[in-house]
């Protein structure tokens, strides 16, 4: 697994410059968060990394296979939970028995073993997102791109999802890019938080969190401090109307 490096990247849409001369490093095996308000350009950067958008400048280290987790769980409505995971694995792992084993384990990791044969219409939003996460991890990728995956979920559901996410991540430690505007997720999941602001977007602050993610709590001293600093920054930057 290599680091993913963006060097001197620029991108414009319709005459609007989203980023210019942008630099970013996603360390291999670490969870990096791009934190910013809606419209600042974090999805654009994610798309550039994923190869969904072109750009000027250099993008290196991006692996061949990438997993995605979006706000929309994007599950196939016509397939069970198992079927949904199988859908993306079929072309990657040819051995049926091996696939079944891997899928069963992943489903267990997100606590949905009882719902293995349930259809998406029978799942709650949180459960559907768990399947989406299981799918992202079960897919043989070296990079996971997440675009506001926990948006719209209540605190309790989100907290559990974060736990499941970390449980999945612990087994494989893939490189993760989390794009969000929620500070709580950023602080609880990330190794490195990059705060994005301005137009064109630039990194206005970098925060590192070294504590063990699995034991981390928002009330921890360093976590709370980072949370507070970022929050205050946004509050100060946001124009008072």
């Amino acid at each position, binding site marked *: 697994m290599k680091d993913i490096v963006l060097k001197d990247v620029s991108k414009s849409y319709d005459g609007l410059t989203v980023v210019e001369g942008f630099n970013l490093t996603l360390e291999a095996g670490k969870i990096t968060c791009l934190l910013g308000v809606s419209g600042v350009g974090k999805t654009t950067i994610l798309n550039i990394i994923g190869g969904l958008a072109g750009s000027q400048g250099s993008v290196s280290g991006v692996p061949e296979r990438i997993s995605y987790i*979006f706000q929309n769980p994007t599950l196939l409505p016509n397939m069970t939970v198992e079927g949904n995971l199988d859908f993306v694995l079929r*072309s990657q792992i040819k051995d049926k028995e091996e696939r079944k084993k891997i899928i069963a384990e992943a489903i267990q990791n997100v606590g949905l073993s009882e719902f293995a044969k349930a*259809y998406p219409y029978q799942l709650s939003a949180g459960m559907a997102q768990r399947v989406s996460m299981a799918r992202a991890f079960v897919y043989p990728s070296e990079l996971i791109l997440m675009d506001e995956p926990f948006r719209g979920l209540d605190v309790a559901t989100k907290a559990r999802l974060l736990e499941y996410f970390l449980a999945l991540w612990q087994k494989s430690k893939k490189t993760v890019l989390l794009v969000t505007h929620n500070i709580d997720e950023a602080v609880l999941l990330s190794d490195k938080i990059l705060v994005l602001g301005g137009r064109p977007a630039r990194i206005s602050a970098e925060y590192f969190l070294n504590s063990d993610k699995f034991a981390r709590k928002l009330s921890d001293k360093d976590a709370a401090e980072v949370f507070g600093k970022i929050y205050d920054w946004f509050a100060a930057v946001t124009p008072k109307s």
Partner: protein
Amino acid sequence: MNKAKLKSIIVRFSPLITVGVFILIWYIAAIAVDIELILPRPALVFKELLALISGKTFWTAVGGTLSRSFTGFAISFALAMILAVAGFAIKPIHRAFSPLVIISRAIPTMSVILLSLIWLTSQTSPILISSLIMFPMFYSDFYSALNNIDKGVIDMAKLYKVGAKDIVTRLYIPNILPSVLDSVRSGISFNVKIVIAAEVLAQTRQSMGISMQISRVMLDTASLLAWTAAAVAISYALELIVELIKRFAVKWRRA
């Protein structure tokens, strides 16, 4: 038996009750008019129907009408599906064909029937007519079905580099199946109706249409109504079959 239980029984059998009331009104009206030629009594029509079913000509006619219906259905289904898929995949195709679809939808059925009589034989013109009428309906429905698939899911499949075969057989086909089957269900009985109408004008041999026409010419209203009842029953049976297929094939939706 308490009130609630009685009510639930009535609700369950309410369709039958409605049919019963309908037949009752028919019976009263038939007695009031009292002219067999104009409105025969239900019992007489039922007797006619039984007589029809036991004869060979009935089944030959039904077979003829059904085979024409299916042929027309198959042609319009295939054409609509091919064009809908093409139009979905390549938007310019959809735009290019939309005037054709609009025209075929707007053409009065009678025009189609009369024109096809000029160009085709009495045995084949009902097939053209049914295809022409069904095509725009199927095309719109199939195209909508494709468009209604969550684009996020399609994107996901591409991002996860799922094979083309799997995308077609596991994503597209199962997700348009409910809409397609709904469309087929309403189309199939409508189709039979149109084919019969065409058969009357085309004087199609061995058809339900011509049998109805002959009954009419013979002033045999009871027989005409019996044929009509048969046509209704057949349409209903076809709809039921499609509904059953749908129940069997589509398990992943709320019932």
